[in-house]
């Protein structure tokens, strides 16, 4: 049963991944990305990670990709985007790094590596509470410091985003205000 679910979802995830790269229309790309993200959530479920699975859906599928699609539909991305790249070595570097990643996955999967053990399966915490409470406990006791630091980092990112957005708007307003003033004063000068 689990094997069937895994292979069906793996096939769907691959279809989604290829679709993201190959589809011509930006909205279709985003929808293929959605497909991949949702099948990833199923993989997490198969690993008994219910919380991670649902967060995958809440954060990635229903927030981030929604924003992608929102921006694409709102701005109407030009389909004749230029393929000139500002960084010249971007494409070969991407190919090399992708190959390295692939080799890493093939070689290191199933090895005892950083954690000292192959990936473990099985429920984290009791079936009754799911793994939410186990995760919350370790997040707010053992890893509290890291958790708070991450929170501060996110707040800094948000503040930075607001600052950048506001500065951009004010700079655009400058030329819009000055010509209006000059045209308003211009007739008086001529008179």
């Amino acid at each position, binding site marked *: 049963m689990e094997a069937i679910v895994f292979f069906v979802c793996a096939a769907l995830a691959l279809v989604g991944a290829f679709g993201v790269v190959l589809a011509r229309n930006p*909205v279709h790309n985003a929808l293929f990305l959605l497909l991949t993200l949702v099948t990833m959530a199923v993989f997490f479920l198969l690993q008994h990670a219910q919380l991670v699975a649902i967060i995958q859906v*809440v954060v990635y599928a*229903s927030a981030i990709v929604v924003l992608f699609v*929102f921006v694409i539909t*709102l701005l109407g991305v030009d389909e004749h985007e230029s393929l000139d790249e500002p960084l010249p070595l971007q494409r070969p570097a991407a190919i090399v790094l992708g190959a390295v990643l692939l080799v890493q996955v093939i070689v290191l999967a199933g090895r005892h590596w950083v954690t000292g053990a192959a990936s473990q399966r099985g429920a984290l915490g009791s079936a009754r*509470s*799911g793994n*939410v409470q186990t995760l919350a406990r370790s997040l707010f006791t053992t890893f509290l410091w890291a958790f708070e630091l991450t929170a501060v980092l996110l707040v800094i990112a948000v503040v930075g985003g607001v600052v950048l957005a506001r500065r951009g708007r004010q700079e655009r307003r400058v030329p819009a205000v000055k010509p209006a003033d000059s045209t308003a004063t211009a007739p008086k000068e001529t008179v």
Partner: protein
Amino acid sequence: MSHLLALDPLFQSGHVGFSVFLVVAVKVLVAFALLLVSVMLYIWGMRKWIADMQNRIGPNTAGPWGILQTLADGIKLFFKEQSIPDSADRVVFRLAPYLSIMPAFLLFCIIPIGGQVSIFGHQTFLQVADLPIGALWILAMSGLGVYGVMLAGWASGSKYPLLGSVRATGQLLSYEAAFSLGILGVLVRAGTLSTHDIVSQQRWVNWHSFVSQWYWLPAFVPFVIFLIAATAETNHPPFDLVEAEQELVGGFNTEYTGIRFAIFFLAEFMNVITMSAVATTLFLGGPSGPGLGFLSAGNALNTWLMPVFWFGLKVIALLFVTVWVRASMPRMRYDRLMALGWKYLIEIAILWVLVAAAIEVANVQNWNVWATVLIAFGSAALAYGVLYLAIPKPDEVVEEFR
């Protein structure tokens, strides 16, 4: 696979045989049929209620009291011609209605409509699935519901649907935050994400349970915020800017005809019913209510019928309030809508979550609850005051810049 639904006693043996599969299949089918029939009845009831409020008669021809009017409309829409505009993106155009109806149904799956019952000799909960992460499932599904509206407007390839869908997306994303924080207000108190556990914490003990057990009173502020945000999430008046007829022709579904149009409407009304069911589950005790006193507690009427009856009654009461609001309130202006969501609901909800968390800690640590509440509100007011003084007002920003 059974661990996905492990909370239901149905799966406790760990062995999923044919009869267990049959029970689950029956539950899914019954839930789907129930939802469809209740949408049909709700649309009829809404038209009748609004007609009463506006001194009209309302639908009265098809069936007794016009009760079959929705069915007649549905059949008519089924047989209508379906057209796709030339400028449309054909695949996404066809996909969008299903993307909007699937989350609406999946959300209903975790709602407990009754207690623990026995079907074919199997003990099970009267709900399709009791997920250990039930409350997050609500957020996930209501978030996915955005896609249907957004893609429908984009795929139509014409102006007004696109405007409607951009409005809709902005509105849904904005109220998602207030919606989640409203749910969080209950979760802090309940301490669990499973909908069955949340409901069983609000069980009926005696007549005082109405105020002492149900969460609507201890979590009154989240309750109000949840109702407002849920109305906005379902695009119901006074938040129906998505399909403002005067400005947008019909909003995101302008180009849709026939059964696809019907599916959008089905999804919208399904969402209203589901949100009422969620509010009932989280705040009004779900199926909890007094049983029939003259029968024993284990009687089939008390285990089967009464919980379902109380659940239905509460959902209908909330639906009536929705219709009442629909009939009384004019549509909101878009900037007011955004201001309400971002400047009031989210702030109040965050404040409430912090105070509720402080109260929970005070209970655990045996602190004085009133002192804790006072300090929590005091520090919140202090923080708000500091922020108010520190952040320049919009007009000051402009002056400084000039």
